[in-house]
């Protein structure tokens, strides 16, 4: 008897140590709602893409965005697939000051094209058409410049077929020219370089248009034959020209992107919620533990031990699953604590009943645990069943809630049934033959 008891206790201690070790090595990270930062939900426009290609397009987009964000140098930014439709991405950026820059990096497709200019600038598409006798020729098309700060645009007529496109680029960098203006330089692949050389040789003195995402960046005049590299000027700041280089390097996105949702939490608010949540949680916990001790005496201490161990195991399990603690996750933790308290109360009340029915301490303990266990299985499995369905149909936050709860229920069965039983067995083993349980009952009811 005592040997198995020692073995069981050692098992519990080992599990507790392992959990503590896991938590020390990989502390639970907090969600953006608790530590501040921005989360963005982007939708990749996959309309017209065949179903079997959607995955590929979205994954490619994710990788390109990741490389852009990494180039920007925001550490710990994560981009994950989001939602049930398979075409949404969740971008989480911890504490960024210049959000509009990040959004620009994420949202612009980065499609670079180089056209030869046929005419312009014009004040409006109508002016341009008038110049060509009412209709822009079939082989040409109209492109607008980027709006100036006052919101004005100019229009150019260019050849429909671009000389160079994004896929022709090999590399892009930023430098500063002799007049201290930022310049983005790019290199071309061998194939494209041949084409470009021929084009520039034929069109010296003519104008060309550098177009990014269907907007003209600049209209340089070709002064010399260019082989395998080109320059883009016109960026107002070094930063802007750097971002352009990043976009060109990472390649163009295979599909356009739409911003669906944005949530920014200031770090101070996140810390405040966290702080208050912890404070309130511990106040509640202290009240619960105090009541349990008052009501159940030693058994209350037993329950407290089980509760603490449950908390430790749950946090460790969450950390193993790489979970991030967010508000809905905390809801799951709170429910778990409630159910853990309930399990103990259920078992203790049952033991009391058995004692009142005149059973001996050991028999009452065994009967109480086994009868309460049947109830616990029903309540726990029902909750797990609902969690599985929540996980299948729910949105990501709801999934987090369901995962936390299921993990909590498993750890709870272990602590409230196994650990608590071992603690009771110790209590009896220490007392020897005429053992009594400290359950806060009026004394006369127990026989050994």
């Amino acid at each position, binding site marked *: 008897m005592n040997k198995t008891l020692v073995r069981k206790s050692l098992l519990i201690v080992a599990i507790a140590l392992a959990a503590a070790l896991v938590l020390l090595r990989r502390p639970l990270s907090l969600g953006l*709602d608790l530590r501040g930062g921005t989360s963005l*939900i982007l*939708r990749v426009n996959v309309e017209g893409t065949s179903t079997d290609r959607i995955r590929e397009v979205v994954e490619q987009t994710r990788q390109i965005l990741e490389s852009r964000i990494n180039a920007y140098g925001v550490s710990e930014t994560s981009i994950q697939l989001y*939602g*049930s439709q398979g075409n949404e991405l969740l971008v989480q950026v911890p504490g960024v000051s210049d959000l*509009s820059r990040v959004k620009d990096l994420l949202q612009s497709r980065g499609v670079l094209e180089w056209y030869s200019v046929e005419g312009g600038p014009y004040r409006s598409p109508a002016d341009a058409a008038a110049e060509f006798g009412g209709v822009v020729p079939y082989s040409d098309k109209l492109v607008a410049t980027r709006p100036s700060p006052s919101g004005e645009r100019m229009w150019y007529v260019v050849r429909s077929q671009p000389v160079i496109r994004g896929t022709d680029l090999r590399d892009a960098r930023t430098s500063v020219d002799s007049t201290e203006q930022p310049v983005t330089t790019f290199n071309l692949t061998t194939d494209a370089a041949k084409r470009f050389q021929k084009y520039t040789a034929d069109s010296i003195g003519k104008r060309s248009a550098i177009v990014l995402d269907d907007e003209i960046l600049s209209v340089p005049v070709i002064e010399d034959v260019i082989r395998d590299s080109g320059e883009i000027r016109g960026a107002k700041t070094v930063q802007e020209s750097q971002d352009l280089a990043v976009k060109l390097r990472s390649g163009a996105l295979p599909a356009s992107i739409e*911003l*669906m*949702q*944005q949530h*920014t939490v*200031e770090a*101070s*608010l996140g810390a405040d*919620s966290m702080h*208050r*949540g912890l404070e*309130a*949680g511990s*106040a*509640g*916990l202290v*009240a*619960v533990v105090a*009541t349990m001790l*008052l*009501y159940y005496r030693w058994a209350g201490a037993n329950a407290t031990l089980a509760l603490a161990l449950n908390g430790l195991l749950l946090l460790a399990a969450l950390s193993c699953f790489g979970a991030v603690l967010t*508000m*809905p996750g905390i*809801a*799951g933790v*709170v*429910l778990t604590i409630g*159910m853990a308290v*309930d399990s103990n*109360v*259920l078992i203790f*009340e049952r033991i*009391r009943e058995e004692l009142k029915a005149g059973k001996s301490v050991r028999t009452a303990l065994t009967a109480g645990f086994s*009868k309460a266990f*049947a*109830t616990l299985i*029903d*309540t726990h*499995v*029902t*909750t797990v*069943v*609902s*969690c599985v*369905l*929540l996980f*299948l*149909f*729910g*949105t990501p*936050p*709801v999934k987090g809630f369901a995962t936390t709860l299921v993990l909590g229920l498993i750890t709870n069965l272990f602590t409230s049934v196994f650990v608590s039983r071992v603690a009771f067995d110790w209590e009896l083993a220490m007392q020897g033959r005429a053992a009594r349980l400290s359950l*806060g009952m*009026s004394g006369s009811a127990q026989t050994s």
Partner: protein
Amino acid sequence: MELFRNANFDFLGKKWWFILPSLALISAGVGSIVVQHGLLYGIDFKGGTQTEIRWDGIPPIGNIRSAISAKLQGVTVVAAHGTGSSNEVIVSTALSPQENVVAVRQTIENALSTISTRYSILDFQVIGPQVSEDLRHQAVMATAGASGGMLLYLSYRFRLGYAVAAVLAMGHDAVITIGLFSLLHQEISLTVVAALLTLIGYSMNDTIVVFDRVRENRRAQPRAPLISVINRSINQTLGRTVLTSGLTLLTALSLLLFGGSVLHGFSLVLVIGIVVGTFSSVYIASPILLAWDRRFDGETLAGGLR
């Protein structure tokens, strides 16, 4: 210490004392939802923007409202709830389809700066209409799926009557809580949904504990009338019901009192839900079980046996 020694209350005999107020609560809640043309959804569910602003001094709510209303549609400005400092306001706006999601924050900041520059934005959220539609859809699917799953499992473990009673009691709690939210003019946000899920879990738990005892007692005394078996079962589990609910209520109350604005909606649902859920296991689930038994199973020997 013991709360109840040999409790022997006639719960089912006094059921109308609780069913009637509960019906009154449900009709008040549903009535308030109808009168207000639906629930007060947070932007999670209807799309739009929400900005939490900390003002340096008392915020001029009227001025803020008119300044932003001039630029955007569907503007509401309210003082942030709960927290000690009343210097925080929450500005919500609708998002028209043409509006650029990126530009809204700038528009709001521009409008605010016409009043004062001494403010800081704590929390800013934009949710597109598509996302919120998906969310509503998924919330309905998840709830229906979870209820169906529990119904199946419980009718397997108990009998159909028990399962129906438990799920109806759970629905009763959810309806009352949502109704009270409407009566109290509280917004339904994603956090509130998480709390609703929590409360459904508690309520189910409570009901199953009672039903488990009913099943056990029926096995022991198959010939006893169900009404007395249920009454005895409720009495036997009374100590655990009161203690567990009391302890969880204690936790929820401390979250409500000390948890701050972010936890306010969440803990309010829990506090309401725990109280309602505790009563519903006794006064809603058990009478339904009894009624079902009389209607479909008769007072048969096998009733409740498996």
